[in-house]
């Protein structure tokens, strides 16, 4: 032992806390069986049936292969994929920027005020997407409230084209998806031990430094989870782009919907769906590698 040390015990003798957790047993996995079975029967099996049945319909494997190649190299599909990814990314980023302070305000609110805030965030969430989207159309239309107010104030001479634009799609989607982000980040913020912030303060850290070095990093798992949820939900949108977008606002979801509903071409719909699924899984995998979700989850556990 070092001579400068005043400590008499050897810390290595103690077991690290993390290793004291009970190892998982077969019984633990058995508990998951009913849930997994339900998932398999209710969600996965019909999906596989749909994909298999409709793709097999195309013809021989060579036909299918040719069809797949044609589809994934189709400029329309690639265009929609790009538009979907870009829009989803922008929507996710805007959601983070808006949701972060909202979630923080929520952690500070108490009693009646908290109920009001959480209500304001959740109630629109219970309203159907179509109703919420129509509400925005009333606001943004050429004869809508915003244009009317601007005209009355003399700020503009002719109504602005607010609806049926990229911006309108992003606005509408952000509005629908914001609650997911707020609630996910709120949960992460709520889990932060307030004494960590006091500790930082006691060590002389000013507010901004505590936020940057302690608060923000600890909320990152929540921000990442929220982003993944919002991004994945975004990529599946088709009602909002159809109602609020212009002629160029075509997402992958719109293509699939039109193949399923209008052209009844389910083979093509399936190929596009698988294309989108692979795209999202690839994205999720990348995220997993970068952020190492497992480690973050472990960290949450050990507290």
């Amino acid at each position, binding site marked *: 032992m070092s001579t400068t040390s005043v400590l008499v015990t050897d810390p290595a003798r103690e077991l690290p806390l993390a290793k004291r957790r009970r190892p998982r047993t077969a019984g633990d996995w058995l508990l998951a069986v009913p849930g997994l079975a339900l998932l398999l029967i209710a969600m996965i099996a019909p999906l596989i049936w749909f994909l298999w049945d409709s793709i097999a319909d195309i013809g021989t494997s060579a036909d299918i292969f040719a069809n797949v190649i044609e589809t994934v190299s189709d400029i329309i599909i690639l265009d929609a994929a790009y538009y979907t990814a870009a829009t989803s990314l922008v929507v996710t980023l805007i959601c983070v920027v808006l949701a972060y302070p909202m979630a923080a305000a929520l952690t500070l609110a108490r009693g009646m005020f908290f109920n009001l805030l959480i209500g304001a965030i959740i109630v629109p969430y219970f309203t159907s997407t179509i109703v919420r989207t129509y509400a925005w159309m009333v606001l943004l239309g*050429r004869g809508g409230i915003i244009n009317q107010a601007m005209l009355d104030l003399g700020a503009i001479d002719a109504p602005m084209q607010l609806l049926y634009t990229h911006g309108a799609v992003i606005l509408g989607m952000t509005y629908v998806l914001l609650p997911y982000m707020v609630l996910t980040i709120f949960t992460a913020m709520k889990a932060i031990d307030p004494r960590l912030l006091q500790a930082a303060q006691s060590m002389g850290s000013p507010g901004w430094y505590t936020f940057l070095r302690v608060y923000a990093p600890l909320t990152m798992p929540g921000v990442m989870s929220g982003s993944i949820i919002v991004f994945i939900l975004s990529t599946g949108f088709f009602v909002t782009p159809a109602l609020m977008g212009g002629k160029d606002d075509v997402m992958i979801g719109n293509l699939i919907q039109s193949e399923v509903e209008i052209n009844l071409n389910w083979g093509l719909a399936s190929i596009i769906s698988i294309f989108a699924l692979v795209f999202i899984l690839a994205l999720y995998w990348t995220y997993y590698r970068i952020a190492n979700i497992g480690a973050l989850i472990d960290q949450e556990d050990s507290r």
Partner: protein
Amino acid sequence: MTTILKAPAYGFSRRSALVAGLATPALIARRSGAAGGQLIVRSPGGAPEESTRRHVWQPFEAETGIRVTPVAATGARVFAMFRSNNHELDVIDIGTATLLTLQRQGGLASIGFGDWRRTDPKDIPEAYRTSHYIGFSLYGTVLGVNTTMSGAEGPPRTWQEFWDVSKFPGPRSLPDMATGLAPLEIALMADGVPLDQIYPIDLDRAFASLSRIKRSISKFWDTGALSVQMLADREVAASAVWSTRIIPAIAGGAPLASSWEGHIIMTQALGIFRNAANMENAQRYVEFALRPDIQANLVQSSRSGPANQKAYEHLPAGYGNDVAGGPGLAGKGVLLNEEWWGDNREVINRRWARWVRS
């Protein structure tokens, strides 16, 4: 968190629910067995369902004792029933395009015209009547305008005027391919093609014509409700809309007007699933729905045209001057060629997507 991430991403769950939902009509059917037997009909939902219930289902039940169970379903869901061999429906009340697709894949029973007693098939023009499905109510795509947005020349009355944005200014809308049809006939009419030469459609000419109006289109509409809403909200000054949507809106006081010049006649039709459980009832229902008196009651509430021409005898004088397929409008419109669309829809769909993007 991981549970959410492991759940099927994308909109697949919707489709799973759709497939899983195929089981519901069976439950309804079992519960509603009545003395005269039963009949399960695909319903279009909304206002059309209400008028069909009042003017067709209820009198049918009263006359035959057969209990009618409506099941709301999209075209895709009807198609899914066929694909999964769950023929839970007997009669399919839907746009002709879906029935044509089903018929081409062998999903429909032939209509037993020979057994008809009180309706004469010959009263229904052959254009609406095929061996496996039959149009029963007609509506049109017409030129709709918001009268408060007209310029000095007044509102456009023809598709050529619709295309002339300098004389008739204001933003416009047209139906999107997502409605199942692209506005190709309209584009040809605007380009001066006579009504009798519309089909087969010259795609190059139609798209070239569309390209000339594209800049003035702020949005292609994809639902009937949205089409008239955009006119009423002054989002657009002129549009191609369904007659059954705009005529009630005008009657309701909206500052809109419509022109039948160059309208396109479309048909709502009836078909019977080939393996229908209640085949006999289904055949009786189809004849019943085409009977002149029943037709007359049904079309009046929705301002549509009857397929059975004898129905005009039961309708007020002049009714035929203001409905699709009406004798007073003969020569002003063209009947949509469903066969041609069935052959070309996929090609047009792709070309449309490219054209919109260009």
